[in-house]
């Protein structure tokens, strides 16, 4: 019958997957929720931290808004690195993050980027109105800090209304970068921290055109090991982390 032939096969399959699939025994690790603009810098910092403290780090990258939302609803993060300090402050006020652990760790910079396949390279925001530029990528201003800053810069330059029909929104800054890397768009505004990839050219955008992108981190209140999360924040802000952050285009606390 049905039950005799199909069900046992499925049950066996399910059990067989149990060994590989059940995340039952979780090794002690630190879960870091980090804004997408930290992708490249943290790829270097995390292994050093793991080695220095003998902790395994699980890095979850996403858009600051979405990660904040998940932490608010009890996501198992130990520490949160936002691309915008206002998200951290809101979560501190909601008692989801530990206020006493809050620390600025960087200030983000914007760049105007063009795929190498697109010529000529754009050097100023006004040029985005050129008819040869058909699609422009920015991160979604509704929830991505770099998107909001990009919108401010475009408004201040006076080209926002003119280029609105050309805009393509990335889910976060890595997604926006991907539009540029695949040359799906002719130009875009991304974070300096992710701009050093072989497929694109870029020029820095005057930071005076947008409110400063002050980035803050804090330990999650529900964390079972807040001291390790705090140690990670201090590591990023310490003598090992700072040079790496600087090399990836962040301005550092004390410099702004």
């Amino acid at each position, binding site marked *: *019958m*049905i039950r005799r*032939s*199909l069900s046992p*096969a*499925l049950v066996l*399959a*399910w059990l067989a*997957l*149990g060994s*590989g*699939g*059940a*995340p039952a025994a*979780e090794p002690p690790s630190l*879960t870091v929720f980090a804004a*997408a603009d930290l*992708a490249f810098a943290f790829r270097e910092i995390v292994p050093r931290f793991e080695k220095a403290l003998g902790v395994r780090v*699980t*890095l*979850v*990258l*996403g858009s600051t808004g979405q990660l904040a*939302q*998940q932490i*608010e*609803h*009890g*996501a*198992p993060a130990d520490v949160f690195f936002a691309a915008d300090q206002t998200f951290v402050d809101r979560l501190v006020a909601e008692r989801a993050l530990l206020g006493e652990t809050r620390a600025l760790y960087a200030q983000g910079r914007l760049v105007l980027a063009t795929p190498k396949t697109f010529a000529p390279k754009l050097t100023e925001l006004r040029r985005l109105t050129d008819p040869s530029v058909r699609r422009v990528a920015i991160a979604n201003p509704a929830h991505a800090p770099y998107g909001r800053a990009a919108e401010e810069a475009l408004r201040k330059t006076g080209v926002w209304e003119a280029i609105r029909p050309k805009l393509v929104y990335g889910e976060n800054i*890595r*997604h926006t970068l*991907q539009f540029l*890397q695949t040359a799906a768009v002719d130009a875009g505004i991304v974070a300096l921290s992710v701009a050093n*990839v072989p497929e694109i050219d870029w020029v820095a955008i005057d930071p005076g055109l947008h409110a400063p992108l002050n980035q803050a981190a804090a330990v999650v209140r*529900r964390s079972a090991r807040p001291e390790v999360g705090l140690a990670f924040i201090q590591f990023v802000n310490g003598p090992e982390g700072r040079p790496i952050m600087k090399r990836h285009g962040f301005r550092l606390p004390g410099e702004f």
Partner: protein
Amino acid sequence: MDLFPVWLSLRVALTATALTLLIGIPVALLLARRRFPGRNVLEAAVVLPLVLPPTVLGYYLLLVIGNRGPVGRALAALGVELAFTWGAAVLAACVGSIALVIKSAQAGFESVDRQLEQAARTLGRSEWSVFWSVTLPLAWRSVLAGGVLAFCRALGEFGITLMVAGNIPGRTQTLPLAIYDRVQAAQMDEANALALIAVAAVVVLLFGLSRLARLRY
């Protein structure tokens, strides 16, 4: 390459399919056989998850099962945490796919000749026995088709899972989320390999299932 997302996804999809069949078949039978007040509402509610964008659905689910939601708080009181665990991924897959089981099975049950069921009853069979020996075997193809669709939908579930289970590598990062992550990190080789595994897994499983189904009928 880390194959954890593959195992997790298969386990989540199989668990979700089993649960959707368990819940979906009685609901389908109810919709196919009974006229009751609120039937139209139930029928609309069943297809709602197909209509709502997955991320929206995921957000509302998170409001319910998150540590501030009513269900989340009740579970926490029992010492159970659902949000951001693999159980949440199963829930996401169930919500996303149960409509496919219900609609398909409902159509199957509606097409069963009621006289055959009546004949079984006149021969003294209980309702339970009529269902197992007449109704279900006659509607089996539709039920199986619904189960296969649900499995595929569960395996590919992305939006709801991202919201309620998160995208935590080694814990809740399912195959679709892992592929998304690799694509965003421009690690196209790994993304392609994982996508290929996803396709291969589905082909092998569906082929095996169709062989089993043919053996039976």
